[in-house]
């Protein structure tokens, strides 16, 4: 497990750096007081700032990567500019070119109308990075698979192959029966997208991609559409006219089943979002303790706990990828199953 260890190391390093920063924070505080803009440490603001999307990538104070803003409105058409235009030299939010930024949402300055914001935000950038890492790793595995044809796997290939086999044999096959091959590419992509997203999200400074509800919603919606488009007669019959149940009960079951069609993807969306976001909030809250108390000893203690929680987060990263893929294959599997043998 090269990567998770690396991630844990980095997280530990990050926690350590934060403790270091807390050492010099009194100096900072006095600086701020001297300039007359003393602001108390607001943990919830810092934490939300991290877990939410943003138009710039804030790695650390003084290390901010401005990201491109892409906006479309019927009034002004499509426009692309850097998000740094929204900030002056004192990091105050300013209007730019008739657009204004309020709580990470972009509006037209004159009418206050929201525009279609297609910006490469922090999470979109993270999405690209995630996709690039995914493609890089698995394409090199594919290359190795071609080069090593008929030979034993080696290197990265032998590291990834057991995971791929695990997804195929332990998640997809048992839940989908003989239909599995049709959905296997989607399931594998889903699994690795979530796994890599979760793991990359644990890196210090990384964006909270898989803990973003828009991302989990899209994933859940794809599973939802795959389930209902591929649903066979047995699946729909089960929903609208549950077999093997007395008539009055069928009428009671009908709305429950129809609600069930939507609660399934809804639960997928919420589960992943909550699990990952909650993990990030817990980690950041523990790190924030050091700043709230302003003590290195609290920082030291919370760093130890952060290290421990980080290891749990590594576990959660795998578990959530597993659970999302398993439930997706289960839902689709139930929709395409050959009925008649059960009930």
């Amino acid at each position, binding site marked *: 497990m090269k990567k998770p260890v690396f991630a844990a190391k980095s997280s530990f390093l990050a926690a350590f750096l934060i403790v270091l920063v807390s050492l010099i924070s009194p100096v900072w505080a006095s600086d701020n007081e001297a300039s007359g803009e003393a602001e108390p440490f607001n943990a919830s603001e810092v934490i939300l700032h991290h877990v939410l999307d943003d138009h710039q990538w804030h790695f650390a104070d003084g290390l901010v990567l401005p990201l491109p803003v892409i906006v479309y409105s019927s009034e002004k058409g499509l426009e692309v500019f850097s998000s740094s235009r929204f900030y002056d030299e004192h990091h105050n939010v300013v209007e730019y070119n008739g657009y204004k930024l309020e709580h990470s949402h972009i509006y037209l300055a004159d009418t206050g109308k929201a525009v279609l914001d*297609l910006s490469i935000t922090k*999470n979109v950038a993270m999405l690209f990075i995630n*996709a690039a890492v995914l493609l890089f790793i698995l394409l090199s595995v594919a290359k190795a*698979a071609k080069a090593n044809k008929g030979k034993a796997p080696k290197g990265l290939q032998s590291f990834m192959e057991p995971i791929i086999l695990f997804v195929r044999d332990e998640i997809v096959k048992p839940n989908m029966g003989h239909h599995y091959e049709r959905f296997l*590419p989607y399931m594998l*992509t889903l699994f690795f997208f979530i796994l890599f997203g979760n793991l990359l999200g644990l890196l210090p400074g990384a964006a909270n991609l898989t803990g973003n509800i*828009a991302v989990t919603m899209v*994933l859940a919606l794809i599973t939802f559409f795959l389930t209902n488009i591929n649903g066979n007669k047995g699946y729909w019959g089960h929903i609208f006219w549950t077999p093997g149940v007395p008539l009055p009960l069928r009428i009671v079951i009908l709305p429950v089943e129809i609600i069930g069609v939507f609660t399934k993807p809804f639960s997928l969306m919420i589960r992943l979002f909550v699990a990952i976001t909650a993990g990030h909030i817990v980690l950041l809250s523990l790190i924030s303790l050091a700043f709230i108390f302003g003590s290195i000893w609290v920082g030291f203690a919370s760093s130890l706990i952060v290290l421990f929680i980080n290891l749990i987060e590594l576990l959660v990263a795998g578990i959530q990828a597993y659970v999302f893929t398993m439930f997706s294959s289960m839902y689709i599997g139930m929709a395409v199953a050959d009925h008649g043998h059960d009930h």
Partner: protein
Amino acid sequence: MDLLTPGTGLILWQIFVFLLLVFLMAKFAWKPILGSLKEREESIQQALDSAERAKLEMAALKSDNEKLLREAREERDKILKQAREAANRMHDQAQADAKRNADKIIEDAKAIIQTEKQAALRDVKSQVAMFSLEIAEKLIKNNLKEDKAQKELADTYIKDLKLN
């Protein structure tokens, strides 16, 4: 709550990037990887099957060998038995021959001894008769030294003749 409201831009990007990712991965990553995995599984299965077949063949070959060996051993035993019987027979035969020869020799010897004995006996008888005659002659000569005795003997003979 910003946390719970999905951003439109991110949704659109996510749909676009994820679907593109599924397409690219399916075509360029999963197809060769899953193909090679399947191929490997099949080749392993084939190797296992052929090993199993080879094992069965070996077992058959071994039982064949054992059968051959058993047959050879039986053959050997049979030949040995026959040889032993032949030897025994020859031995018996020789013994019988020897006995017969010995018997014959003994028989011949006995016959010779018998004839020799009879010849000897005959010899002895004639000699005894001669001795007896000599003795009788001497006796008679002795007894018939006087006339009286001669007359008496002649009388005896005459008497005997008369009796006859």
